[in-house]
């Protein structure tokens, strides 16, 4: 097994620096929005988490496809770790979005197209993780199918604001941002991408070790080495 500690340390340092820099830029380096005022400060990390949800779902979906094709456990390890991260970032996105909705619209939740499809995607990924955890032997393939289905839901979430009339701002908001706001947003996305990779590397190492220990024990039991 490769020693991934140096990579983890480098990623951790870069992520910490990125989080500190974006926090500084969010609160001191960008102007207050003329329409949403101070609550717009939620936007930067909320959007970054939404991007990471999409990245997580795509990584999970692609590696699930590879697993279904080649049936090699190493692909499944990455898919499981990415699926859990998709749930993590999806939960953050939904919670911060709900709080922002309360500040901007006066409501914690609205059943509009963007919010509903995003919730649906989060539930699909949560379903994936639960099937993996409680599905027993053979659930990997079932869960992999679910992950591919989740990947197909991502474009629906992204384009929902164009297809239907929604309360949620459209995707055209980002290009129209003031210079420092746009820079801060993309820096936030980059920082969260580093955080995503950091957590993915650490989690993949865990799932891989977990699988190898399980396989070693099964081998020992099958060969009669263990009781």
């Amino acid at each position, binding site marked *: 097994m490769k020693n991934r500690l140096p990579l983890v340390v480098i990623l951790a340092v870069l992520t910490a620096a990125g989080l500190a820099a974006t926090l500084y830029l969010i609160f001191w380096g960008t102007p*207050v929005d003329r329409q*949403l*005022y*101070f*609550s717009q*400060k*939620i936007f930067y*990390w*909320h959007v970054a*988490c939404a991007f990471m949800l999409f990245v997580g779902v795509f990584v999970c979906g692609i590696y699930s496809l590879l697993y279904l094709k080649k049936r090699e456990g190493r692909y499944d390890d990455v898919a499981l770790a990415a699926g*859990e991260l998709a749930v*993590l970032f999806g*939960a*953050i996105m939904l*919670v*911060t979005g709900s*709080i*922002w909705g*309360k*500040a901007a619209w006066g409501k914690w939740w609205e059943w509009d197209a963007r919010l509903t499809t995003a919730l649906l995607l989060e539930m699909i990924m949560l379903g994936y993780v639960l099937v993996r955890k409680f599905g027993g032997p053979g659930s990997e393939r079932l869960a992999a199918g679910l992950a591919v289905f989740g990947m197909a839901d991502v474009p629906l979430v992204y384009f929902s604001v164009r297809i239907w009339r929604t309360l949620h701002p459209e995707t055209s908001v980002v290009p129209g941002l003031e210079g420092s706001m746009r820079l801060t947003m993309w820096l936030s996305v980059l920082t969260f991408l580093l955080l995503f990779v950091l*957590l993915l590397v*650490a*989690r993949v190492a*865990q799932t891989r*070790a*977990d699988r190898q*220990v399980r396989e*070693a*024990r099964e081998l*020992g039991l099958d060969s009669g*080495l*263990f009781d």
Partner: protein
Amino acid sequence: MVMKRIVLIAFGALFLAGGTAAAQSPEGAAAEPALAADQAPPEAGVQPDPSAIRAPEERRMPPAGANLQEQCEDLLRSDAAWRTRLRDQLTQRLLVDDEGANELTKENLEWRALMKKELATEIHQQDADEMATNRKHVIMAYAALWVITALFIIYMYMRQVRLREEIARLERDIRDAARS
């Protein structure tokens, strides 16, 4: 202008309250006077009791023939803090809190429309002030983000501890098997 608005608000509220009480009480307009006794303004410097402005059904009608508007004006002139509180509560209930507004104005939609028009400037200003200084929701959002991330890292740490235990058990089993 502001005084006119305040008087209008108080007049409207008391009018509604009186109407509600009269509808509930068999004595109607002959009910005992209430304003001087239980709606007295608080002393200067003392924080007014939130229950000072009571729900319409708790109010009672002033004596028959009394000039309600004059009474309201006297009452409102007598204490600035109470006046501000009354205005704020009514503004809140009429234009921010839908349930409160419905409760207050269910019997008089015309009065509600009038109040909304009169309070338009105040409520816009109130909304703008609230949004401009809204730190509560931003702090909540960032705190939620850190808490959820911390929970995930704790989950990862616990998995790591379990994994180490499992590896140690496997090593022990292999050693035992090799010995035997």
